Structure formats: C-alpha cells, structure tokens
C-alpha cells in the first residue's frame, strides 16, 4: 500500500513540472500538448487514488477529466489555432528566467501555506495539496504574463486542473453532482471563449490582448 502514495506524489511532481514547462513554452501547439499531458497526469493520479481509497467516484472524475481536458478541449484548441493561424506567442511581458524565479517563489509560498493543513487531510495523498496550490498560482501567473488570447485560456484551464487536483488530494473528491457542474461550466466556458477569439480576431485583426486596453479609467 505504500507504493500508491509514492506514485501519486511522483505524478504530483510531474504536474508541477508541466506547469513550469507551460510557463516557458512559447510555441502554442506545444503548449496545448503540455496541457493535455498535465490532464493525463491528473487522470492517472485520480485513478490511483480512487483505487487506493476504494472510491468509485474518483473514477468518474478521472473519466470526466480524460474526456474533457485530455481529449475534447485540446482538440478544440488545435482547431482554433489552425483556423486562426496562430503558432507562436509573442514575447511574454516578463522574460522567462525571471518568471522561473518568481514561480519558485510562488511554489515556496504555496508549500508554506499548505503545510500546516495538509497533515490534517483525510486522503492518503494530502501532502500533494501544496503542489495543487502551487499549480493554481503558477497558472495564475501565466495568465497575467501572456498577452495572447490562446495562452491565457490555457492558463485558465491549467488552473482548473490544479483545482481538481486539490479536490482529489485534499478530500476524497467532490460530490458527483458538483463534479459534473464544474465540468459543464468549464466546457461551456471554453466554447464561449473560443467564439470570442474569432470575434476578437474579426474586430482587432489580431489575438493580442494588448489591443484590449481601450477601456481605461479617465
């Protein structure tokens, strides 16, 4: 039984590494691949935890993540970037090495926040709560520093990954009905954002969010 928590911790580390990889990646197709890979790691972690805790709810959660975050959403994003013909993100607002250092700072902050409470977790993988929080904060940073629409959306989705990971490691998963609600919100949200990207392109002739700065305080 000692084996499964170790494996979950390994997957948690992989999820965190993928978050860092996403921060430094500028090629949008690779960004989508990294996001799908992060989703896959999340699915594996959920299945393992579900097996260890004999909790079939976690299998359903894993299946939802697999269908949405590993298959459907990456496929949709691929279609969007092909139709809009965007390949590279412009240089991020802060350069990559600086972001890495800030990111490490965020991870330390997340760990120090989560450490006192992760011991109290009912789940066998409670220690991974810090990693989940770190992923949320890193995705948050990614959304702030990217100026293109597609990477911002991927940041948003990756934050959702971190949250689901938090729910599976800190507790024995959310109640089924909530899981389904969250999945529905994410799916509808991504469809709306996808439509928006086409409209923004039409209006501004670019997907650079820096165009969206007309509404300033005056």
């Amino acid at each position: 039984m000692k084996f499964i928590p170790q494996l979950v911790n390994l997957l948690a580390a992989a999820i965190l590494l993928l978050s860092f990889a996403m921060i430094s990646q500028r090629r949008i197709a690779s960004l989508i691949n990294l996001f799908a890979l992060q989703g896959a790691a999340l699915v594996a972690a959920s299945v393992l935890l579900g097996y260890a805790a004999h909790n079939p709810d976690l299998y359903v959660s894993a299946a939802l993540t697999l269908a949405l975050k590993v298959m459907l959403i990456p496929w949709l994003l691929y279609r969007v970037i092909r139709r809009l013909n965007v390949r590279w993100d412009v240089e991020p607002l802060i350069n990559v090495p600086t972001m890495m250092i800030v990111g490490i700072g965020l991870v330390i902050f997340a760990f120090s926040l989560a450490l006192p409470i992760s011991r109290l977790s009912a789940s066998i993988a409670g220690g991974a709560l810090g990693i989940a929080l770190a992923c949320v904060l890193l995705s948050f940073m990614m959304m702030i520093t990217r100026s293109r629409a597609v990477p911002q959306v991927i940041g948003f989705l990756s934050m959702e990954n971190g949250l689901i990971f938090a729910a599976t490691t800190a507790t024995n998963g959310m109640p089924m009905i909530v899981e389904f609600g969250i999945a529905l919100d994410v799916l509808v949200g991504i469809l709306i954002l996808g439509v928006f990207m086409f409209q923004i392109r039409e209006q501004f002739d670019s997907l650079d969010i820096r165009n969206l700065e007309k509404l300033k305080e005056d």
Partner: protein
Amino acid sequence: MQALYFVLGVPVMGAAVLALVGHRDWARDVNVAFSLGTFVAACLMTVDVISRGPLFAWDRQFFIDPLNVFLVTLTAFVALTTAIFSRPYMRVERDHGKMTPPRLRLYHSMYQLFSFTMLLALTTNNMGILWVAMEAATLTTVLLVSVYRTAASLEAAWKYFILCGVGIALALFGTVLLHMASERILGAEGGGLLWTSLNEVKSRLDPTITTLAFAFLFIGYGTKVGLVPLHNWLPDAHAEGPTPVSAVLSGLLLNVALYAVLRCKVLTDGALHSALASQLMIAFGLLSVVVAAFFLSRQRDVKRMFAYSSIEHMGLITFAFGLGGPIATYAGLLHMTVHSLIKSAIFYAVGHACQKAGTQVMEDIRGLIKVSPTVAWGLILGSLAILGMPPFGVFASEFLILTTAMREQPWATPLLLLALAVAFASVFSKILPMVFGESSVKPLAHSPALVPVFVHLGLGLMLGLYIPPYLDMWYRQAARMLGG
C-alpha cells in the same frame, strides 16, 4: 415545496423556449411572461415559508430560510421589472440596428438562464452547487455583456470572464478546503458540502483550514461583489452591455455574490471564535467605499459612474455585515434591498435617456426635462435616493450603519462620511445638467417603460418610511442567523 420547483423550473423553460423563438416580435412579451411566472412562484414559496418555516427539498440539496427567501423574492421581482423595462428598450435597439434577430434570441434566452443561475445560487444548500451557479452566472452574463459585438463590449466581456474566472477559481479552492475541514468530522458520506450540515458542526471545524478557506472564498466571491481592488471588471461590464443587463448586474448579481460571502462568514465565525471574517469585511468594505467614491468624480460615461456607485454601495453593505451585531446586520440587509431596487430604477431611467441622446457621455446629454419629464424625474429622484437623501430607504440604512460604526469602529466614521459627501457632490453635479439646461435629446418612437422606474422608487421610498411587519420579521430572523 412545489413552488420551489417552479421557481427554478420556469426560468429554465423560459430559456429553452426563448432559445427557439427569442427573435420574434412577441418574444419580449414571452420574456416578461416567464419572469412573471417565476415571480409568482417565488411569492407562493414565500407564503409557504412564512407559514411553515424553513424548508428542505430534494434530499436536503435545497434549503430555504429567512436569509435567502427574501433575496429570492427580490431577485424574482427585479428580474420581472427589468424584463418589462427591456421590452421597449430592446425594440429601440432593434430599430437602431444594434440588435439583430440572432442577438435578440441570445439575449432573451440568456436573460432567463441568468435568472435561473441567480435563483439556483440562492436556494441551493450545497456549497459546491453554489459555486457552479456563480460560475454559470458569469458565463451567461459574459454573453449578455458582449451581445453588441463591438470592440469595446468584447473587451469588457473578455476582461470580465478572465478576472471573474480567476476570482471564482479561488473560491473553488476555498470550497475544496471547506470540504476537507468538514470531511474530518462528517466523513466522506456525511454530505460535507451541505451548508446546513456544515452549520451544525461549525464549532468543530478545524480553525487553520477554515481560516485559509475563508480567505480564498472571500477573495473569490469578493471579486464578483466588486470589492476594491478586485473591481476592475465591473465598470466595463456595466458600461458596455445593454442597459437591462447593467440593471440586473447591479441589482441581482452583486447581491447574490455577497450572499455567498455571508454564508461563508457564518461558518467561519462559528469555527474561529475570532473576528477574522469581520475584520476582513470591514477593511475591504471601507476600502471599496472610499476608492469608489473618488473614482465617481472622474467618470464621463453615465453607466460607468453608476457602476462605481454600485461598488461604493456594495462596499458599504460589506462593511455593515463586517460590523456585525443586530442593528448593523439589519441595516446591511435593508441596504441590499433598497440598493437593488433604486439602482435598477436608475439604470432604467439612464437607459432611456441614453437611447434618446444616442450617447452615454454625460456632457452630451442635456435638458432631459424638456423632452421627457418623466425620465428626467426618474433620474433625479433615483440619484437623490441612491445618494442617501431622506426619506428614501438608503438614508435609513446608511443612518443605521453610520451610527453603529460610530459606536463600534469610531475611526471609520469620518472616512465613510467623507466618501458619502464626495459621492454626493460628484454624482449630483453631473446629473443636474443632464436634467436641466438646453435640450440636446430627441424624442423616441416608442414610449419608454416608466412603470418599473417609479414602482422601484416608490418601494425605496416606502422602505425609508415604513417597513412592513413581515419584512421586518424576516430581516430580524436573518440578522439573528448571521450572528447578530
């Protein structure tokens, strides 16, 4: 109990029907009819709750108590009057070519779906579903804000989505932590996310986890309340969407988000035995009041100005709930009600004024009183009411809040008074020339819907002079439940 199913079912049905026929001429009336149905169901449910006390439904997933029942009625009422206002408004927008049939269909369908998400958020007992409903409310309003498809409205909607998406994601993390705290006591099968179960065991929730959970929940839902410094989305979303949407954003969405914060505060207060939640709410509330008041004077767009006024008032309400105690909590609930009524009335008047002038820039709207005296009177009375002039209800609640603040947190009172004075000076000096002066506005082909404006103002006036006994009883019960 049946009434509850209708409260939730009618708007869903409305959304489905209007998704099919929302572009027809009579869709505006269908929209009103569905909103009326929801309101009637809400009234029946209220009668039910008054006679039989709090009720549960559907395996404890839904829960109606004095706190949410009055908000349900208020929400259904404002949704109904806004639907009535939106009839002539959308007709004009269609004639101006700003609303095409597909957009009208989207607008009507999303309007009903938005009502549904608000009512779901209010009636659910499950903190997870509350989150899902708040996120769904963001999604529907994003579509409503961007309905004109102009560059500015797309920008506003994108900003709104991303900011509120991030904010609400933090609230989900807070919900996960709350679930973690309750699972330790109730076990995995104990319905650890049901608010009533949490409320029963709140004194045994782990303080460390609950502190962190409340911090996340407060930031998350606080973003949707529009508390400074998380308010950036609010003025844009109010200014760039259609005016009925501005009215429901201010009148309903902000209230419901604050309701979510209140539910979390009750649990946190029980778990911590310290004033952490109250202190956070006092600090952020006060900051919002002061910052928003100073931003008011710098606005040129009338809808942006009243959006900042909403931030100011939500700050004041948050401050009142932070003070706690029976009087301040009572005042907070009263202020929620009156703000929602008066602010939506102002938006109705502003909507008609802007349509007549063809602009939202205040300097270009002049002499409303000559062309349409009723709209002008609605605007000026509404502004006076929202600025806290007696005898309107805002005066009563602000008076109660200020007197409690003097006793509990004396240092905050001068700041509040200063902010209220600044708000008064800036709003009033901008509204007066819009109403009087040489006329620059044209009459419109369709008569405006002024009944909602004056019904709301009348109710706001009534609440300033006389609070009906059953409403008084509700407020008292809700205030007691909120720990007052």
